[in-house]
């Protein structure tokens, strides 16, 4: 089958490999652009959230490339994401595209359904050994991508030549993308590590530490969040993202995880409020405990789980003394408003950090 999937951050490198090893033709949707957004906003309900619109747009772009089926995930709890797949399927059908949707619900909820859905992806007669091999190679690749990305986030705020890390990391992705066996992937990972380590950096530079939390799609997809992590890093901030895909898979699909996050949230919120609402609270608490200077919350405009989290965050923020900036994201493509708020937030955090040293307003940087 010619199968497409949601475009989210760097994950397409893994899905591409997984699907082709399973004997399908992966149709990688183009990286989201204004065109994707145009498609999405034209055919999605006006009140739908931005991840829904971008995904719809990218399915349409994948259809242009010949996609016949979509593999995607479902969701649990009071969040619209659980209805994404059936709604996307109906909208596409109304437009005249009859696509098969393979929806993977969290396996720990209903193992049988998960298996039934997954079975559609497997070739009819496949040995368990061969299958495990395919899955483990995808897992190794996913972890290698996350490893190198994490490394790039350590280096970028200290880079001496602006933009260098971003270029080298693109190179790392190409290397990993081309690797097909586990040993090639390990070699690519090592080569990537070496390339990143060679970037000239300022080791003495004093950095702020900011955690990035929020709804998974807007956190992971730079097109929607205007590359907020890189913007912060280029302002001299060590920006840590709460969600990496490998961790998310581990905590939500393989073993019941994220217990520490839920435990951390408990004094403020005990209920699952859908989406990543509970995580946003728990992660803010954890970042405060780890001594971070601040937190940036990313939320799709009108996302209920994140609105619930946002209304609880002022209490967390004042009790644990950690400033939080919330950015609601929608279809705006202008980045100026986001930059203004991030810059002001960074100023605020420097002031707070240096208050003890009595150095007010000394952190201004020359343009």
């Amino acid at each position, binding site marked *: 089958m010619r199968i497409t999937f949601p475009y989210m951050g760097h994950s397409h490198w893994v899905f591409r490999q997984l699907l082709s090893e399973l004997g399908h033709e992966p149709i990688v949707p183009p990286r989201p*652009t204004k065109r994707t957004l145009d498609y999405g906003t034209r055919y999605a309900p006006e009140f739908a959230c931005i991840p829904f619109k971008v995904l719809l747009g990218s399915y349409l772009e994948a259809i242009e490339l010949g996609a016949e089926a979509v593999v995607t995930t479902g969701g649990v709890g009071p969040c619209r994401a659980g209805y994404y797949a059936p709604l996307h399927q109906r909208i596409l059908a109304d437009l005249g595209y009859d696509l098969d949707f393979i929806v993977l619900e969290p396996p720990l909820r209903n193992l049988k359904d998960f298996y039934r859905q997954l079975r559609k992806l497997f070739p009819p007669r496949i040995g368990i050994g061969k299958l495990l091999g395919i899955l483990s190679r995808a897992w190794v690749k996913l972890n290698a991508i996350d490893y190198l990305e994490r490394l790039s986030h350590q280096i970028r705020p200290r880079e001496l030549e602006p933009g260098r890390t971003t270029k080298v990391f693109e190179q790392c992705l190409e290397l990993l993308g081309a690797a097909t066996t586990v040993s090639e992937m390990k070699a690519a990972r090592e080569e990537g590590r070496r390339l990143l380590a060679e970037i000239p950096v300022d080791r003495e530079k004093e950095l702020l530490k900011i955690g990035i939390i929020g709804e998974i799609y807007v956190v992971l997809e730079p097109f929607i969040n205007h590359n907020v992590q890189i913007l912060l890093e280029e302002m001299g901030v060590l920006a840590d993202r709460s969600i990496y895909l490998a961790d998310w898979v581990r905590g939500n699909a393989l073993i019941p995880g994220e217990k520490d996050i839920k435990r951390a949230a408990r004094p403020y919120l005990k209920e699952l409020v859908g989406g990543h609402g509970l995580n946003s609270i728990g992660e803010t608490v954890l970042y405060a405990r780890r001594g971070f200077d601040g937190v940036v919350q990313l939320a799709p405009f009108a996302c209920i789980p994140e609105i619930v989290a946002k209304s609880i965050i002022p209490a967390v923020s004042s009790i644990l003394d950690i400033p939080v900036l919330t950015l609601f994201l929608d279809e705006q493509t202008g980045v100026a408003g986001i930059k*203004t708020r991030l810059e002001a937030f960074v*100023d*605020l955090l420097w*002031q*707070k950090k240096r208050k003890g040293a009595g150095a007010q*307003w000394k952190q201004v940087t*020359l*343009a």
Partner: protein
Amino acid sequence: MEAGYLGIDVGSVSTNLVVIGPGTEVLASVYIRTQGDPIGAIQRGLKMVAEELGDGIEIKAVGTTGSARHLAGVVVGADLVKNEITAHAVASIHSVPEVKTIFEIGGQDSKIIILRDGIVTDFAMNTVCAAGTGSFLEHQASRLGIPIEKFGELALAAKNPVRIAGRCTVFAESDMIHKQQTGHRVEDIIAGLCEALVRNYLNNVGKGKELLPPYVFQGGVAANTGIRAAFAKFLGFEPIIPQHYKVMGALGVALLVKEEAERRPGFVTAFRGFAASELRYQVGSFECEGCPNRCEVVNLRMEGKNLAYWGDRCGKWSNLS
């Protein structure tokens, strides 16, 4: 020659310039309309500042702020480009050192800045709605045929302010028209609008924040006595209007760049001089065809030479400058 430090704030509605002297005294201050032409406004502003200053002042450093701060920075040759939230806070602390809450209402945006002990601890900006901004007030004033300068005076003459929906400009406007058509006096409608604007601003931008006095109210809308009165009514305290309330962004960035320049021994400004008001700047834009993003790239030229590009997502053009 006495030293002067120039701050330029290019906002959506107004462009403000301030020059301060070695003792932070304001030597010149200009407030003009941007009128959709930021470069033209900067050049007009520079000319007016030069006239106001006369001879005997040498500009030692220049800072820019406001939504067109990067453009302004390239045009004049700025030493510091700073976001308007920080610039406004600096000017406010300078004018009223004990300030705990700043209300700033400008043309397209409105913000609340919370301070404790002279340190910014929290801020918020309107994100999705223009209901609490100067542009909306102006639009309504012109619809009613009232000069914006008379707006506040009329609001104060109201006997029974009517209730206007303030959540959304569309709701507010239809509510206003409805009340006007049923025969309410224009003063009462205007006063009702002032109250709706302040109510919406405090509930929306100020949501979840501890708003403690002293309050400083600044930005172009602070000139409006009707809005001032509505703030006093809701908060139970008169907000303080600083002397230079209209040009606080420019003042703030002038203060910041002065401090920065004085801290660096041997500092030399990048300022192109007041002659920049005579230079020929040209902006052009084109759609980049490098990828389906089709970014609208802006190109700034000075006297026929390429100065800068911006507007691209990937850095292909902006890295050239």
